Protein backbone atom coordinates (compact mmCIF):
# COMPACT_ATOMS: atom_id res chain seq x y z
CA UNK A 1 0.00 0.00 0.00
CA UNK A 2 1.16 3.52 -0.70
CA UNK A 3 1.34 6.14 2.03
CA UNK A 4 1.89 9.80 2.25
CA UNK A 5 3.96 10.53 5.29
CA UNK A 6 6.09 13.23 6.94
CA UNK A 7 9.58 12.09 7.90
CA UNK A 8 12.49 13.83 9.49
CA UNK A 9 16.19 13.50 8.80
CA UNK A 10 19.33 15.22 9.94
CA UNK A 11 21.27 16.24 6.89
CA UNK A 12 24.99 16.95 7.05
CA UNK A 13 26.18 19.45 4.52
CA UNK A 14 29.71 20.42 3.58
CA UNK A 15 30.40 24.18 3.73
CA UNK A 16 31.18 24.30 0.02
CA UNK A 17 27.45 23.95 -0.62
CA UNK A 18 26.57 27.00 1.46
CA UNK A 19 25.45 30.19 -0.15
CA UNK A 20 22.31 31.23 -1.87
CA UNK A 21 21.70 27.71 -3.15
CA UNK A 22 21.95 26.13 0.24
CA UNK A 23 18.34 25.06 0.32
CA UNK A 24 18.44 23.57 -3.16
CA UNK A 25 21.61 21.73 -2.35
CA UNK A 26 20.11 20.39 0.81
CA UNK A 27 17.02 19.17 -0.99
CA UNK A 28 18.89 17.50 -3.82
CA UNK A 29 21.15 15.78 -1.30
CA UNK A 30 18.09 14.63 0.58
CA UNK A 31 16.61 13.17 -2.58
CA UNK A 32 19.83 11.37 -3.36
CA UNK A 33 20.06 10.04 0.16
CA UNK A 34 16.57 8.79 0.85
CA UNK A 35 14.78 8.03 -2.41
CA UNK A 36 14.95 4.34 -3.11
CA UNK A 37 15.93 3.37 0.41
CA UNK A 38 13.70 1.32 2.63
CA UNK A 39 13.04 0.72 6.28
CA UNK A 40 10.95 -1.79 8.16
CA UNK A 41 8.71 0.87 9.56
CA UNK A 42 8.01 2.94 6.48
CA UNK A 43 8.82 0.67 3.61
CA UNK A 44 10.24 2.00 0.35
CA UNK A 45 10.68 5.74 0.09
CA UNK A 46 9.42 6.16 -3.44
CA UNK A 47 9.60 9.91 -3.86
CA UNK A 48 9.86 13.13 -1.90
CA UNK A 49 6.85 15.30 -2.56
CA UNK A 50 7.66 18.37 -0.51
CA UNK A 51 9.77 19.95 2.20
CA UNK A 52 7.87 20.91 5.35
CA UNK A 53 10.57 22.65 7.25
CA UNK A 54 14.33 23.00 7.45
CA UNK A 55 15.55 23.68 10.96
CA UNK A 56 18.49 25.72 12.16
CA UNK A 57 21.86 24.27 11.23
CA UNK A 58 24.28 23.13 13.87
CA UNK A 59 28.03 23.19 13.28
CA UNK A 60 29.65 19.91 14.13
CA UNK A 61 32.67 20.23 16.35
CA UNK A 62 35.96 19.57 14.69
CA UNK A 63 34.64 19.52 11.14
CA UNK A 64 33.13 22.22 9.01
CA UNK A 65 30.00 20.19 8.43
CA UNK A 66 26.66 21.60 9.45
CA UNK A 67 23.71 19.43 10.42
CA UNK A 68 20.24 20.55 9.37
CA UNK A 69 17.10 18.85 10.63
CA UNK A 70 14.86 18.51 7.58
CA UNK A 71 11.18 17.59 7.68
CA UNK A 72 9.90 16.32 4.39
CA UNK A 73 6.80 14.74 2.93
CA UNK A 74 7.18 11.64 0.87
CA UNK A 75 5.32 8.81 -0.76
CA UNK A 76 6.29 5.44 0.64
CA UNK A 77 5.29 1.96 -0.39
CA UNK A 78 5.00 -0.72 2.22
CA UNK A 79 3.44 -4.16 2.08
CA UNK A 80 1.52 -5.35 5.12
CA UNK A 81 0.79 -8.79 6.38
CA UNK A 82 -2.80 -9.55 5.46
CA UNK A 83 -2.82 -7.11 2.56
CA UNK A 84 -4.17 -8.18 -0.81
CA UNK A 85 -1.90 -7.25 -3.70
CA UNK A 86 -1.93 -7.73 -7.39
CA UNK A 87 1.45 -8.82 -8.64
CA UNK A 88 3.12 -9.88 -11.87
CA UNK A 89 4.81 -13.27 -11.94
CA UNK A 90 8.51 -13.00 -12.75
CA UNK A 91 9.77 -16.54 -12.32
CA UNK A 92 8.25 -19.97 -11.85
CA UNK A 93 10.06 -23.03 -10.51
CA UNK A 94 9.21 -26.19 -8.66
CA UNK A 95 9.58 -24.47 -5.30
CA UNK A 96 6.86 -21.98 -6.16
CA UNK A 97 6.89 -18.68 -8.00
CA UNK A 98 8.24 -15.16 -7.63
CA UNK A 99 6.16 -12.12 -8.36
CA UNK A 100 6.67 -8.38 -8.29
CA UNK A 101 4.34 -5.71 -6.99
CA UNK A 102 5.99 -2.39 -7.66
CA UNK A 103 9.40 -2.37 -5.97
CA UNK A 104 8.54 -5.35 -3.79
CA UNK A 105 9.45 -8.98 -4.47
CA UNK A 106 7.03 -11.68 -3.38
CA UNK A 107 7.59 -15.41 -3.20
CA UNK A 108 4.69 -17.83 -3.20
CA UNK A 109 5.78 -21.29 -2.13
CA UNK A 110 4.20 -24.32 -3.75
CA UNK A 111 2.65 -25.12 -0.36
CA UNK A 112 0.69 -21.90 -0.71
CA UNK A 113 -0.52 -22.62 -4.21
CA UNK A 114 -3.84 -24.50 -4.34
CA UNK A 115 -3.34 -28.25 -4.21
CA UNK A 116 -5.03 -28.83 -7.55
CA UNK A 117 -2.35 -26.86 -9.36
CA UNK A 118 0.60 -28.93 -10.53
CA UNK A 119 4.04 -27.80 -11.57
CA UNK A 120 4.83 -28.35 -15.24
CA UNK A 121 8.44 -28.00 -16.30
CA UNK A 122 9.59 -27.04 -19.77
CA UNK A 123 10.84 -23.88 -21.41
CA UNK A 124 7.84 -22.04 -19.97
CA UNK A 125 7.56 -23.58 -16.51
CA UNK A 126 4.12 -23.09 -15.01
CA UNK A 127 1.54 -24.22 -12.50
CA UNK A 128 -1.60 -25.57 -14.09
CA UNK A 129 -4.84 -27.07 -12.83
CA UNK A 130 -5.57 -30.63 -13.90
CA UNK A 131 -8.17 -29.48 -16.42
CA UNK A 132 -5.77 -26.87 -17.79
CA UNK A 133 -8.21 -24.01 -17.26
CA UNK A 134 -5.94 -21.98 -14.99
CA UNK A 135 -2.27 -21.45 -15.62
CA UNK A 136 0.35 -19.46 -13.74
CA UNK A 137 3.47 -18.66 -15.71
CA UNK A 138 5.85 -15.78 -16.24
CA UNK A 139 3.99 -12.47 -16.74
CA UNK A 140 0.72 -13.80 -15.37
CA UNK A 141 -1.03 -11.39 -13.07
CA UNK A 142 -2.02 -12.87 -9.75
CA UNK A 143 -3.92 -11.56 -6.79
CA UNK A 144 -2.24 -12.71 -3.61
CA UNK A 145 -2.24 -12.16 0.09
CA UNK A 146 0.90 -11.17 1.97
CA UNK A 147 1.62 -13.39 4.95
CA UNK A 148 5.18 -12.41 5.83
CA UNK A 149 7.63 -9.61 5.12
CA UNK A 150 11.36 -9.10 5.42
CA UNK A 151 13.13 -5.79 4.98
CA UNK A 152 16.77 -5.08 4.29
CA UNK A 153 18.56 -1.88 3.30
CA UNK A 154 17.58 -1.86 -0.34
CA UNK A 155 14.87 -4.44 -0.70
CA UNK A 156 11.60 -5.64 0.72
CA UNK A 157 10.83 -9.27 0.33
CA UNK A 158 7.47 -10.89 1.04
CA UNK A 159 5.94 -14.31 1.32
CA UNK A 160 2.50 -14.55 -0.20
CA UNK A 161 -0.27 -17.07 -0.65
CA UNK A 162 -2.87 -17.70 -3.32
CA UNK A 163 -4.48 -20.57 -1.42
CA UNK A 164 -7.66 -18.82 -0.44
CA UNK A 165 -10.97 -17.73 -1.85
CA UNK A 166 -10.84 -15.00 -4.47
CA UNK A 167 -7.07 -15.25 -4.85
CA UNK A 168 -5.12 -16.48 -7.83
CA UNK A 169 -4.67 -15.60 -11.49
CA UNK A 170 -6.50 -12.52 -12.67
CA UNK A 171 -5.15 -12.35 -16.15
CA UNK A 172 -3.36 -14.92 -18.18
CA UNK A 173 -0.94 -13.64 -20.82
CA UNK A 174 -1.32 -16.83 -22.84
CA UNK A 175 -5.03 -16.37 -23.38
CA UNK A 176 -5.04 -12.59 -23.49
Amino acid sequence: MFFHIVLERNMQLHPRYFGRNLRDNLVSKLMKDVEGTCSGRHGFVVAITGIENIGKGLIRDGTGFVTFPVKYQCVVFRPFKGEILEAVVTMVNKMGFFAEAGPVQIFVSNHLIPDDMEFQSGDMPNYTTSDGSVKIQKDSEVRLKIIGTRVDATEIFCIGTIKDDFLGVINDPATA
Partner: protein
Amino acid sequence: MEKGGKGYSLPSKGLKSSLKSTPANDASIKGKDDSSAKSKRGRKVQFNSEADKFDFLSKSNGKLDAPAAKGNLSKGGKGDRISNIGKAPSTKEPQPLELKVEQEIPKNAKCLMHCEASQILHGIQGQMVLLSRDPTVKLPVSFDKALHYAKTGARYTNPQSVRQVLESLKKHGVSDGEICVLANVCPESVDEVFALIPSLKSKKNMLTEPVKGVLDELANLKQQE
Protein backbone atom coordinates in the same frame (compact mmCIF):
# COMPACT_ATOMS: atom_id res chain seq x y z
CA MET B 1 13.96 -7.86 13.37
CA GLU B 2 10.92 -9.74 14.39
CA LYS B 3 9.54 -9.19 10.98
CA GLY B 4 12.57 -10.77 9.47
CA GLY B 5 12.02 -13.81 11.56
CA LYS B 6 8.51 -14.11 10.40
CA GLY B 7 9.49 -13.62 6.83
CA TYR B 8 11.68 -16.62 7.14
CA SER B 9 9.08 -18.66 8.88
CA LEU B 10 7.55 -19.87 5.71
CA PRO B 11 10.61 -21.25 4.07
CA SER B 12 11.38 -22.99 7.31
CA LYS B 13 8.01 -24.60 7.17
CA GLY B 14 9.27 -26.97 4.55
CA LEU B 15 12.28 -27.65 6.69
CA LYS B 16 10.15 -28.18 9.71
CA SER B 17 8.02 -30.79 8.12
CA SER B 18 11.05 -32.87 7.31
CA LEU B 19 12.22 -32.49 10.87
CA LYS B 20 8.84 -32.94 12.41
CA SER B 21 9.27 -36.66 12.78
CA THR B 22 12.50 -36.40 14.71
CA PRO B 23 11.36 -34.40 17.71
CA ALA B 24 8.18 -36.40 17.81
CA ASN B 25 10.05 -39.66 17.76
CA ASP B 26 12.41 -38.46 20.40
CA ALA B 27 9.55 -37.44 22.55
CA SER B 28 7.82 -40.76 22.20
CA ILE B 29 10.99 -42.75 22.80
CA LYS B 30 11.97 -40.77 25.85
CA GLY B 31 9.62 -38.30 27.34
CA LYS B 32 12.39 -36.42 29.06
CA ASP B 33 14.41 -36.14 25.92
CA ASP B 34 13.97 -32.46 25.32
CA SER B 35 15.00 -31.40 28.76
CA SER B 36 18.05 -33.60 28.83
CA ALA B 37 18.95 -32.70 25.30
CA LYS B 38 19.01 -29.09 26.33
CA SER B 39 21.07 -29.74 29.41
CA LYS B 40 23.30 -32.13 27.56
CA ARG B 41 26.01 -29.60 27.05
CA GLY B 42 25.91 -28.34 30.61
CA ARG B 43 25.85 -31.65 32.42
CA LYS B 44 27.68 -33.81 30.06
CA VAL B 45 29.75 -35.46 32.78
CA GLN B 46 26.86 -36.65 34.90
CA PHE B 47 24.77 -37.97 32.06
CA ASN B 48 27.56 -39.20 29.95
CA SER B 49 26.13 -42.59 29.17
CA GLU B 50 22.68 -41.24 28.50
CA ALA B 51 24.06 -38.44 26.41
CA ASP B 52 25.87 -40.98 24.32
CA LYS B 53 22.70 -42.88 23.83
CA PHE B 54 20.88 -40.11 22.15
CA ASP B 55 23.92 -38.81 20.52
CA PHE B 56 23.78 -41.83 18.35
CA LEU B 57 20.14 -41.18 17.73
CA SER B 58 20.48 -37.57 16.86
CA LYS B 59 24.12 -36.98 16.11
CA SER B 60 23.63 -36.68 12.39
CA ASN B 61 21.11 -33.92 12.82
CA GLY B 62 21.92 -33.01 16.36
CA LYS B 63 22.61 -29.43 15.43
CA LEU B 64 19.32 -29.08 13.70
CA ASP B 65 17.44 -31.14 16.18
CA ALA B 66 18.17 -29.02 19.17
CA PRO B 67 16.71 -25.81 17.80
CA ALA B 68 13.84 -27.73 16.31
CA ALA B 69 13.07 -29.30 19.64
CA LYS B 70 13.33 -25.93 21.29
CA GLY B 71 11.05 -24.37 18.76
CA ASN B 72 8.48 -27.09 18.96
CA LEU B 73 8.52 -28.03 22.59
CA SER B 74 9.80 -25.30 24.83
CA LYS B 75 8.27 -22.59 22.71
CA GLY B 76 5.48 -24.72 21.47
CA GLY B 77 3.20 -21.76 21.11
CA LYS B 78 5.42 -20.12 18.59
CA GLY B 79 5.77 -23.20 16.50
CA ASP B 80 2.05 -23.64 16.43
CA ARG B 81 1.49 -20.08 15.49
CA ILE B 82 3.81 -20.32 12.55
CA SER B 83 2.02 -23.31 11.18
CA ASN B 84 -1.26 -21.56 11.75
CA ILE B 85 -0.16 -18.64 9.66
CA GLY B 86 0.67 -21.05 6.92
CA LYS B 87 -2.64 -22.79 7.09
CA ALA B 88 -4.88 -19.89 7.97
CA PRO B 89 -5.86 -19.00 4.44
CA SER B 90 -6.98 -22.48 3.52
CA THR B 91 -8.54 -23.78 6.70
CA LYS B 92 -10.25 -20.81 8.34
CA GLU B 93 -8.39 -20.93 11.64
CA PRO B 94 -9.97 -19.05 14.52
CA GLN B 95 -7.44 -16.25 14.08
CA PRO B 96 -6.99 -15.52 10.42
CA LEU B 97 -4.30 -13.14 9.31
CA GLU B 98 -5.77 -9.70 9.69
CA LEU B 99 -4.66 -6.46 8.20
CA LYS B 100 -3.53 -4.11 10.92
CA VAL B 101 -2.22 -1.14 9.03
CA GLU B 102 -3.07 1.41 11.71
CA GLN B 103 -0.99 -0.29 14.36
CA GLU B 104 2.06 -0.59 12.17
CA ILE B 105 2.48 2.84 10.71
CA PRO B 106 3.19 6.18 12.36
CA LYS B 107 0.22 8.36 13.22
CA ASN B 108 0.99 11.04 10.67
CA ALA B 109 0.82 8.71 7.69
CA LYS B 110 -2.06 8.75 5.26
CA CYS B 111 -2.96 5.69 3.23
CA LEU B 112 -3.09 6.31 -0.48
CA MET B 113 -5.18 4.40 -2.94
CA HIS B 114 -3.39 3.36 -6.10
CA CYS B 115 -5.20 5.95 -8.11
CA GLU B 116 -4.10 8.69 -5.71
CA ALA B 117 -0.52 7.45 -5.60
CA SER B 118 -0.47 7.24 -9.34
CA GLN B 119 -1.55 10.88 -9.64
CA ILE B 120 1.07 12.10 -7.18
CA LEU B 121 3.90 10.08 -8.68
CA HIS B 122 2.92 11.16 -12.14
CA GLY B 123 3.15 14.76 -11.01
CA ILE B 124 6.61 14.17 -9.63
CA GLN B 125 7.75 12.52 -12.79
CA GLY B 126 6.61 15.58 -14.68
CA GLN B 127 8.55 17.88 -12.38
CA MET B 128 11.65 15.78 -12.65
CA VAL B 129 11.93 16.49 -16.33
CA LEU B 130 12.34 20.15 -15.42
CA LEU B 131 14.58 19.50 -12.47
CA SER B 132 16.88 17.08 -14.18
CA ARG B 133 19.38 19.76 -15.10
CA ASP B 134 21.38 18.41 -12.22
CA PRO B 135 22.51 15.08 -13.63
CA THR B 136 23.40 13.71 -10.22
CA VAL B 137 19.77 13.80 -9.16
CA LYS B 138 17.88 11.03 -10.79
CA LEU B 139 14.95 8.94 -9.82
CA PRO B 140 15.81 5.50 -8.54
CA VAL B 141 14.64 2.31 -10.21
CA SER B 142 12.16 1.75 -7.43
CA PHE B 143 10.39 4.96 -8.43
CA ASP B 144 9.71 3.72 -11.93
CA LYS B 145 8.54 0.40 -10.60
CA ALA B 146 6.28 2.03 -8.06
CA LEU B 147 4.85 4.40 -10.65
CA HIS B 148 4.20 1.59 -13.07
CA TYR B 149 2.62 -0.46 -10.32
CA ALA B 150 0.41 2.38 -9.16
CA LYS B 151 -0.64 3.07 -12.73
CA THR B 152 -1.57 -0.51 -13.53
CA GLY B 153 -3.19 -0.97 -10.14
CA ALA B 154 -5.32 2.14 -10.37
CA ARG B 155 -8.86 1.10 -11.23
CA TYR B 156 -10.37 4.54 -11.20
CA THR B 157 -9.34 7.79 -12.78
CA ASN B 158 -11.02 10.05 -10.31
CA PRO B 159 -9.58 9.49 -6.84
CA GLN B 160 -11.73 12.17 -5.20
CA SER B 161 -15.02 10.54 -6.03
CA VAL B 162 -13.77 7.09 -5.08
CA ARG B 163 -12.51 8.46 -1.79
CA GLN B 164 -15.86 10.12 -1.22
CA VAL B 165 -17.77 6.93 -1.81
CA LEU B 166 -15.51 4.81 0.39
CA GLU B 167 -15.30 7.42 3.11
CA SER B 168 -18.93 6.63 3.91
CA LEU B 169 -17.77 3.28 5.28
CA LYS B 170 -15.70 5.04 7.88
CA LYS B 171 -18.65 5.76 10.10
CA HIS B 172 -19.24 2.01 10.23
CA GLY B 173 -15.80 1.53 11.71
CA VAL B 174 -13.88 0.58 8.58
CA SER B 175 -10.28 1.75 8.88
CA ASP B 176 -8.25 3.74 6.37
CA GLY B 177 -6.12 0.73 5.53
CA GLU B 178 -9.13 -1.43 4.83
CA ILE B 179 -10.64 1.28 2.67
CA CYS B 180 -7.48 1.46 0.60
CA VAL B 181 -7.37 -2.27 0.10
CA LEU B 182 -11.00 -2.10 -1.02
CA ALA B 183 -10.19 0.57 -3.56
CA ASN B 184 -7.11 -1.25 -4.84
CA VAL B 185 -8.58 -4.70 -5.08
CA CYS B 186 -11.83 -3.56 -6.61
CA PRO B 187 -13.94 -6.51 -5.46
CA GLU B 188 -17.10 -7.48 -7.27
CA SER B 189 -19.20 -9.00 -4.53
CA VAL B 190 -19.81 -8.58 -0.83
CA ASP B 191 -18.57 -12.11 -0.19
CA GLU B 192 -15.33 -11.24 -1.90
CA VAL B 193 -14.88 -8.25 0.40
CA PHE B 194 -15.28 -10.32 3.53
CA ALA B 195 -13.10 -13.13 2.23
CA LEU B 196 -10.26 -10.81 1.32
CA ILE B 197 -10.44 -8.57 4.37
CA PRO B 198 -11.14 -10.90 7.27
CA SER B 199 -10.86 -8.05 9.78
CA LEU B 200 -14.27 -6.87 8.56
CA LYS B 201 -15.90 -10.20 9.32
CA SER B 202 -16.57 -9.35 12.94
CA LYS B 203 -18.87 -6.56 11.79
CA LYS B 204 -20.34 -8.53 8.94
CA ASN B 205 -23.98 -8.12 9.89
CA MET B 206 -23.66 -4.41 10.24
CA LEU B 207 -21.49 -3.89 7.18
CA THR B 208 -23.13 -6.05 4.55
CA GLU B 209 -25.63 -3.42 3.46
CA PRO B 210 -23.29 -0.40 3.36
CA VAL B 211 -20.59 -2.40 1.60
CA LYS B 212 -23.08 -3.51 -1.00
CA GLY B 213 -24.09 0.09 -1.58
CA VAL B 214 -20.48 1.19 -1.91
CA LEU B 215 -19.65 -1.57 -4.37
CA ASP B 216 -22.61 -0.56 -6.52
CA GLU B 217 -21.52 3.05 -6.49
CA LEU B 218 -17.95 2.12 -7.36
CA ALA B 219 -19.15 -0.01 -10.24
CA ASN B 220 -21.11 3.01 -11.46
CA LEU B 221 -18.04 5.22 -11.22
CA LYS B 222 -16.06 2.75 -13.23
CA GLN B 223 -18.65 2.60 -15.94
CA GLN B 224 -18.70 6.34 -16.30
CA GLU B 225 -14.98 6.43 -16.96
